[in-house]
């Protein structure tokens, strides 16, 4: 079974091992140790780590399409944000009559722009199951339509990258419009509770953090499952020699579509977990800059390795947290330099370095091993 196959892999086991170990350590240090103990992990840090994990999942999603399918999507932020908005709308409805205007149905921003009733597309978001379904379906549907159009007419490479950018840019403009009924520039905020748990308690935060960790684990396994399946090899084939793959009888556009949609859904999940932890979703998540930044996390970590994406995402964002605290104006220089150096001198990213070291130590390389090396070299 394709989903269980990864679990027998050494690399996947290692990854999951590290991930769960980290989750447990953080949880213990947070709960067991009292405030003020130097090793105590504060709620602040927990949320911060939770955020990093969301980004990691997002990066994995991007690596799936870029690393294995050769589609450089500069619009994945859009799927992330859509997932986030789906969750945001649910949280918004959960506020109920506790909003500043005490309107049981309408969110505050609708009240003071005196909307009379709820727009139709807000229906159903008061039900958790519906909202969570939307977290997957909204980005999935967008990816399906967009991808179907694009891949069917064989829009590839640079063109695809640029229209994905156009897509997210258009969405950003759209969501900025207050008429859209998504709160415009202010977005959705002031959330109260999720599934009945108060969002402003540390317990809930820890819960969200753990949930994110698990989501990342699942997402990783799903992606790994795809790339180690025959379909994964077909995607690599599409990436390297699209025409050839066609002549072998594979419907390249459908392969691309499938992987693209899966990736979009993962991004959506990441967004959905991101929103309750940072407490706001607003159109700036759609900004093309953000989408490009994601790609750089992946590039830094190392394309076509999945775990590289995770490393990249966490590293860059940790650096960001530190820098913006220490020397704000230096941050953009650092980020910019990172872009340049990685792409020019480190085309295989950190994962590439790791692998070099590993290869020099052991040479017993199974099929998956050697294939993954060569994928990255391609």
């Amino acid at each position, binding site marked *: 079974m394709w989903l269980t196959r990864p679990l027998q892999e050494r690399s996947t086991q290692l990854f999951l091992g590290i991930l769960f170990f980290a989750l447990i350590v953080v949880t213990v240090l947070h709960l067991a140790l009292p405030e003020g103990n130097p090793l105590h992990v504060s709620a602040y840090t927990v949320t911060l780590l939770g955020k990093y994990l969301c980004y990691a999942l997002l990066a994995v999603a991007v690596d799936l399409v870029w690393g294995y399918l050769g589609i450089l999507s500069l619009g994945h932020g859009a799927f992330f944000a859509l997932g986030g908005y789906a969750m945001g709308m649910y949280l918004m409805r959960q506020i109920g009559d506790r909003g500043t205007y005490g309107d049981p149905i309408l969110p505050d921003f609708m009240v003071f722009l005196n909307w009379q009733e709820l727009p139709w597309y807000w229906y159903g978001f008061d039900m958790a199951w519906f909202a969570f379904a939307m977290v997957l379906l909204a980005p999935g549907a967008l990816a399906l339509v967009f991808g179907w*159009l694009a891949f069917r007419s064989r829009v590839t*490479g640079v063109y695809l990258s640029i229209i994905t950018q*156009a*897509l997210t840019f258009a969405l950003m403009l759209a969501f900025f419009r207050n008429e859209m009924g998504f709160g415009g520039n202010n977005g959705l905020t002031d959330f109260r509770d999720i599934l009945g748990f108060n969002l402003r308690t540390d317990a809930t935060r820890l819960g969200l953090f753990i949930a994110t960790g698990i989501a990342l684990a699942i997402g990783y396994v799903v992606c790994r499952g795809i790339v180690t399946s025959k379909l994964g090899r077909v995607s690599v084939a599409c990436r390297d020699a699209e025409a050839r793959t066609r002549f072998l009888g594979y419907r390249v556009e459908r392969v691309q579509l499938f992987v693209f949609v899966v990736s979009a859904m993962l991004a959506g999940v990441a967004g959905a977990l991101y929103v309750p932890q940072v407490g706001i979703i607003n159109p700036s998540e759609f900004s093309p800059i953000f989408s*490009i930044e994601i790609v750089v996390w992946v590039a830094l970590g190392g394309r076509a390795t999945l775990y590289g994406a995770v490393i990249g995402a966490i590293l860059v964002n940790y650096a960001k947290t530190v820098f913006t605290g220490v020397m704000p104006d230096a941050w953009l220089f650092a980020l910019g330099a990172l872009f*340049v150096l*990685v*792409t020019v001198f480190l085309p295989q990213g950190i994962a590439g370095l790791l692998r070099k070291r590993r290869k020099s130590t052991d040479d017993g390389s199974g099929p998956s091993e050697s294939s993954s090396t060569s994928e990255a070299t391609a």
Partner: protein
Amino acid sequence: MSIPRWLTFFLMVLLMTTAGTVSAQQQDQTPEALLEQLADASPRDTEAAIKAIATSGHERARAWLEAYGNNRISQVEATGRIVIVLNNRGRDWEVADALTGENLGEMSRRDLDRIAINNAVRRQLAGVLAMLDLFAKDVAVREAAALDLLGKVDDAIVEEVTARIEEEPDAGVRNRLEEALAIYQVEEQGSLDAIEVLSGSLHPRARAALNSAVASEDPARKAAAEQALASIQQKLRLNNAAETLYFGLSLGSVLVLAAIGLAITFGVMGVINMAHGELIMLGAYTTWGMQQLLPGQPGLALILSIPAGFLVAALAGIAIERSVIQFLKGRPLETLLATFGVSLILQQLVRTVISPLNRTVVTPEWMSGSLVINDALSLTLNRMYVIGFALLVFTALMLIMRRTRLGLEVRAVTQNRAMARSMGIKATRVDIMTFALGSGVAGLAGVALSQLTNVGPNLGQNYIIDSFMVVVFGGVGNLWGTLVAGLTLGTINQLLEPWAGAVLAKIIVLVFIILFIQKRPKGLFPQKGRAAEG
């Protein structure tokens, strides 16, 4: 704000004095008193004070009124002396005595009390000054003054105006005066034949008058006014269509300018230069720098900054090519990432080195204002220059690509690198040249944009995406495509805007491009043949 009859007489007198003829006029007030009166005037009596000055016949009267209009008249707190502020920048202001005009050097802002003026007063002032100008020798000045009088005529000066109409030698000025008079008659006296006069006019003020007439009870007037308005609307519709077209063209040419450089680096070299926007920004900052170097002559600075902007951007381009892009041959997507990094660095560089704040770029006289076709249709000059400039740049590029050695080599290298190499073309050199050219053109775009929008660190970002859209829509590697695409998108956008609103219009255009790319993945003018199939 009515200027009583007797004023007109004095205005005549004042005219003579300013015209230099000796006048026998009574000095009922000393200049000091006049200024005192203005200084101490409460909003209600400022009017009287202005009149007093206007009619005093003092040779500085006009200077005072103008200074007053520009908020330049102040009173020294300690001495109560009235001064004219010559330079009001910074904490210490350079002042001159209002009476004698002698320069008193710098004075701290703390010690000066500005003599306040507001728009209401300023409008009166304009009326008075306009009346004065009506007697100027220069026709242009008189015309301007007459235009200025539209809607400013009132019982006070109506006779004067009527008188002028008789004496006015220049037909154009006369028509203006008649219009001005008619507006007054329509609004104040509700005369019917005045409506006739106005029925030809496209000036918004005339329409205003007619609209007010439409509101009146008297059916005859109502009908006449409506008819007049109808005929005006007819003309307006045409003009508006022309106007929208012009808007479209000008926006289009901006897009073309921004994109054309990209069309070269991206289209011809296959390099996705995300730092393109920042190269534009550099061009704009060069303009600013030039204006700092040549204070006082923005026009010259602007012209000089055309070559300068090209050079600066081109050099920056070369630096980028050498330091980053040459290592990424045949990896277009990687160039995208690397150059994006470069763009971040450039932005932050400008922020830290120059300033996070926008810079002031002055628009030279000959570029501000607009070319008046008629009262309803006037084409803004700066945009007209930009359109011309865009076309100029485009033709220049075309010539370079088609006629010069470089162009030939560039095309050779893009067609088949190896082959070109073997024929002794230095591919690397060509790369550098091409990239420099593309970047330089971006610089030119920056120079132009500095006349339309902010010169600030974010300038580039606002144009990069649009530029890519234009290039992709037009078909990569095809300059004509870029031109057509730019103008089309610009026009579509402007056509949509009135009913869709600015935001929606932009969104619609983006979606349109996305869908269009589905239909024609290689853009409007794709490159054909097996070479391109790849």
